[in-house]
């Protein structure tokens, strides 16, 4: 009896390797095994190019709900949602006047799930604006911008500006009436330095406003060139910039020693629950001696990792939860409310009133006093002031605490009252009695530009803040007052622009009082 010759070893090996290939692909993709021990949990994080933006271990304080409220991750989640839905919309969108509008109609009425995807895109963008602003407020009120996190505050401001620019370029694309007149107004705000150069009579030689408008529009009229440029900004330049800034922002959170926390965070947290957070369940393969030569007051030096937990799973599961909540929120909003699409752009007839989305209506209220000061001057001063905050407030008291620092919550409460009150009063005066042009028709334009309700309000806030610095002998107190006032002014202007402005930007108590056509 002859037995079959055994297959040559190479062949056997081939089949075995083929069978094992799927398992090995998975193994090699995740460079370490299952994250079950402290060590594999660590390698799970720093062995992954995306996850290693996080630190390997997270302080228990950072995981408390009240520390961050998940706002940063929520804005990242909203950005990811807009990224996915935006790419889907690009399958059908055509960036050419009139064709753009028709393709929006197609997306709305013909494309399977098109309307839903567009609604999600629009709502995620709105959610992103809200969460970015709230996240900034959180970082400010918990004094998290202080050393060594000053520069990350600046990056965060870059993210805020980029987010708003993405929103602005986004609602221009449908080429409906809103889009057309928003581009027109935006381009003319870019041109508004002429308001100053005209008053000085130097526009002929020095015209930065005209140059900005020309580069923005690619032409001297709003048309195909302008649309393709805004499209390029919206789908390419700004998302890339935003993604790069996000990566640096997250990386800096890690490098700057995790989230800010109070000096006595460890005592307030108490001892970690014994069995819950095992540390070094096996002999560590790495020592932490390198940490000893790190310069400066890195929060972990000398304190050891006692109050930290592995980021996998504790932090990542929390982040996943925030992502899912954000997705749910956007889906529900998209189901409840459709993204607007007005009539086809008509260069002959502006909408009346022509209103931007809500987050720009505060700005629109400001430009209704002066294009240059409202559209460029005051926003630039506000950005400059916000950017300087971490470099002027070098104090330590209250870091990581809500409303931490001299004054605390009572000061913030008083500032809310003043911020709301001052903006309402200034607006009421401007609405009821008019402003310089009505009082002194012959006043020079430079005065009208420089002294308008917006600048007066900014000046009141600035003086109040200086007074707070002297009263409490603390830059943080001034910053608390200024930032609170700034938020309140933004709120009041936005509400007035949204609900109380009608045709010709006239004040009405209710849209029911608007004159008919």
């Amino acid at each position, binding site marked *: 009896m002859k037995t079959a010759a055994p297959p040559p070893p190479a062949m056997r090996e081939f089949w075995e390797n083929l069978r094992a290939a799927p398992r090995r692909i998975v193994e090699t993709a995740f460079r370490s095994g299952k994250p079950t021990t402290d060590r594999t949990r660590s390698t799970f994080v720093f062995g992954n190019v995306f996850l290693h933006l996080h630190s390997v271990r997270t302080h228990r304080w950072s995981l408390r709900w009240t520390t961050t409220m998940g706002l940063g991750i929520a804005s990242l989640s909203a950005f990811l949602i807009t990224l996915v839905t935006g790419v889907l919309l690009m399958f059908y969108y055509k960036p050419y006047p009139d064709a753009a509008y028709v393709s929006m109609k197609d997306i709305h009425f013909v494309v399977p799930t098109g309307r839903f995807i567009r609604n999600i895109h629009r709502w995620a963008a709105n959610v992103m604006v809200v969460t970015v602003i709230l996240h900034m407020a959180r970082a400010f009120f918990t004094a998290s911008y202080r050393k060594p996190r000053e520069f990350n505050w600046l990056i965060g401001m870059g993210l805020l500006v980029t987010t708003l620019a993405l929103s602005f370029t986004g609602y221009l694309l449908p080429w409906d009436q809103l889009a057309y007149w928003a581009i027109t107004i935006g381009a003319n*705000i870019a041109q508004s330095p002429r308001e100053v150069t005209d008053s000085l009579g130097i526009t002929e030689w020095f015209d930065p406003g005209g140059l900005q408008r020309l580069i923005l529009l690619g032409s001297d009229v709003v048309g195909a060139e302008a649309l393709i440029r805004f499209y390029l900004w919206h789908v390419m330049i700004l998302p890339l910039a935003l993604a790069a800034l996000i990566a640096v922002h997250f990386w800096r959170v890690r490098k700057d020693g995790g989230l800010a926390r109070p000096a006595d965070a460890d005592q307030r947290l108490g001892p970690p629950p014994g069995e819950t957070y095992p540390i070094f369940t096996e002999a560590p393969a790495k020592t932490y001696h390198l940490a000893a030569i790190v310069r400066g007051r890195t929060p972990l030096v000398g304190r050891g990792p006692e109050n930290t937990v592995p980021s996998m799973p504790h932090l990542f599961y929390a982040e996943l939860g925030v992502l899912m909540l954000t997705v749910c929120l956007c889906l529900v909003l998209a189901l409840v409310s459709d993204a607007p699409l007005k009539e086809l752009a008509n260069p002959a007839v502006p909408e009346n009133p022509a209103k931007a989305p809500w987050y720009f209506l505060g700005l629109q209220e400001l430009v209704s006093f002066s294009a240059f000061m409202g559209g460029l001057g005051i926003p630039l001063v506000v950005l400059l002031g916000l950017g300087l905050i971490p470099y002027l407030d070098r104090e330590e008291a209250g870091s990581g605490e809500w409303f931490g620092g001299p004054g605390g919550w009572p000061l913030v409460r008083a500032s809310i009252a003043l911020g709301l009150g001052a903006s309402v009063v200034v607006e009421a005066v401007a609405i009821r009695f008019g402003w310089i042009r009505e009082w002194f028709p012959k006043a020079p334009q430079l005065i009208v530009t420089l002294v308008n309700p917006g600048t007066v309000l900014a000046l009141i806030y600035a003086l109040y803040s200086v007074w707070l610095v002297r009263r409490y002998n603390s830059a943080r107190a001034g910053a608390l007052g200024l930032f609170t006032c700034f938020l309140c002014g933004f709120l009041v202007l936005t509400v007035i622009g949204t609900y109380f402005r009608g045709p010709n930007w006239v004040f009405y108590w209710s849209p029911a009082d608007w004159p008919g056509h």
Partner: protein
Amino acid sequence: MTVTPKPPGSRLDPEPVPRRDVLGLASIWSAAAALLFSLFGMLRLPKAAVLSSPSKKFRVTLPDTLPAGEALLPPGRSVAVFRDAGGVYAISTICTHLGCVVKPIPEGFECPCHGSRFAPDGSVTKGPAPVALAWRKVSGSGSTWIVDEGATVPAGAKVAS
């Protein structure tokens, strides 16, 4: 010949800059300069040399029945053409505030976007507009006129009809 030994330098003395550092710094700065210049070159591209806008000159026929001081709005153009005892003139309907289209009203012009008001001669009477509406160049005679939206003339320059 006696050789005077160099005094021993302190280790705190700064090291002299070696020549290679000069070369190295020069190469780094020349690389930076080259990149900067290429950036300027790239920045030239977005500024269009030829603007793709339609012709700004157009012909308009003024009906004999046009009342004095009443605006004629040629479709697709952003000027209002008038005729009165002084002659024919054209005023831009682009608001000088933020570029919305103003509407002729009996008291002059009114901007729907932010409530600027202009007198019949285009000067600002109310609102945020910084300068008066521009007067455009008009030429011709009889009932046919040529308006040039690209050419501005001083306010009050009417062309006798």
